[in-house]
């Protein structure tokens, strides 16, 4: 990454990239709202949140050298970003409330930067979601009836987990370890009532596999599960990944928040 703060610059860039994906890459206006009780009203400029978020909205990676001239890049792309602060009762001090608009659509996103560049989209258009950028996600917006969509998903041979949302706007989020196959996307697009489909590529460098168990959460639980005396590096998540396994703190797969 580049920038002064991972929880501001890198995380904001990841939130921006997901927001861009949800908008299908076309953004005219973005309203960003920060809760007065959080950290961002006083730090979003000097700690690089503005830089990271705008770079992400333009589709840049957190390490892109264009981060440094993001204001010019933003102007060239014609994207207008405006900040206001207010009292929203946000629980996390690094909460981003985004209202994104282009000529055809508008979406509301609430995202949190949880530290070290990790993020979670916790709300999309009033629905409580959990998008952490650690897996391939496909949004299928539809008008009323999800049954034809679910039938198409179940008929497909690939392993797909999904969550269904119905607040204000209806959509299904498909969670997969690879991008959903073109054939299924075409099939879903052709269904009556499906209004649009948006693919959200992962923004984290290491993805969470679909079936996964965290082997230990504390030193004592590790110790009691193995009893082996090996170098501490041997219990590293990265060394486990070499053996075909990996884990991260939260598992976003097949977890549909209420």
């Amino acid at each position, binding site marked *: *990454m*580049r*920038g*002064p*703060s*991972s*929880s501001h*610059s*890198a995380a904001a860039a990841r939130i921006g990239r997901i927001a861009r994906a949800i908008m299908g890459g076309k953004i005219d206006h973005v309203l960003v709202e920060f809760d007065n*009780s*959080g*950290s961002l009203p*006083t*730090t979003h400029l*000097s*700690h690089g949140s503005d830089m990271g978020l705008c770079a992400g909205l333009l589709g840049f990676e957190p*390490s892109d050298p264009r*981060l*440094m001239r993001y204001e010019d890049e933003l102007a060239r792309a014609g994207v207008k970003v405006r900040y206001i602060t207010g009292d929203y009762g946000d629980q*996390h*001090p*690094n909460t981003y409330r985004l209202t994104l608009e282009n000529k055809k659509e508008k979406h509301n996103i609430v995202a949190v*930067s*949880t*530290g*070290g*560049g*990790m993020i979670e989209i916790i709300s999309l258009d009033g629905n409580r979601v959990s998008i952490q950028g650690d897996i391939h996600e496909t949004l299928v917006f539809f008008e009323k009836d999800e049954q034809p969509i679910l039938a198409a998903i179940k008929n497909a041979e690939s392993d797909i987990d999904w969550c269904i949302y119905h607040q204000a706007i209806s959509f299904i989020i498909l969670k997969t370890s690879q991008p959903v196959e073109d054939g299924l996307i075409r099939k879903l697009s052709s269904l009556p009532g499906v209004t649009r489909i948006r693919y959200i590529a992962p923004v984290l460098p290491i993805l969470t596999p679909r079936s996964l168990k965290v082997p230990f*959460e*504390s*030193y*004592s639980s590790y110790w009691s599960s193995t009893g082996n*005396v*090996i*170098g*501490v*590096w*041997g*219990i*590293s*998540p*990265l*060394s486990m990944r070499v053996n075909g396994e990996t884990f991260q*703190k939260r598992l976003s797969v097949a977890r549909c928040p209420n």
Partner: protein
Amino acid sequence: MSELVNIMKSGIRTALKGTRHPSRILGPQSVDFLKNLQSGNLADLGVLNTVILYVTALMEAKSAMEIIVAAPTAGSCGALPGTVIGTADALDIAESRVVRAMMAGGVLGVLIIHNGTFSAEVAGCQAECGSGSGMAAAALVDLLGGTADQALAAASLALQNIFGMVCDPVANRVEVPCLGKNIMAASNALTCANMALSGFDPVIPIDEVIVTMDKVGKSIPHELRCTALGGLSITRTSKLIERALDQGATEGEWKQMPDNKAEE
């Protein structure tokens, strides 16, 4: 992981050539430290001098917008890599051991994130430089050939020392006191690694230390959790520098700005 170690080393190399960036408080101090170290002007601190050099270089690379590894965060990007790579260079330890040691440090990171946070906005600087110190202590023990028990003991010792560390960035920038705290985290890691390697007893097991650390962090007042609303952030000089930099003063120039407009 070896790719990440390469990024860390590249950041150190780049910064030691001297970096500049507008809107930065500090100049390229790592260059001066190296000169003074080579001229014999500094106290002999053994490997710690190389560690100070590398931690400073990494923090300058960050502030110059070079590519860095958040380890565990950008504000604490100096302590873990600077300590491990600095010690390995000073003692001529192979890179493969450095990579392995970073993984050992990573284990500590996993234990911390399962029970807490890396976000100073949630739990103060102890979540960032503090976590980095614990991770570096475990990594060092591994680098120096210690056992897993010793690595976890070193981490427990190191984390016990950083409880309550506040986040109060000067001029609302991630430079001061962040650089000093990264170096303190590195020094703490080195001393705790040696303590653990010689059998010092941390008394409180690492799992209990980590859970307690999170509770303590969350009890730090809002003003001292990276909001720039308390501590050093609101000193007269901090406000003066902030105003000068916002008015376009470049690195170093803020020292020459008239101070009579600073907010008290």
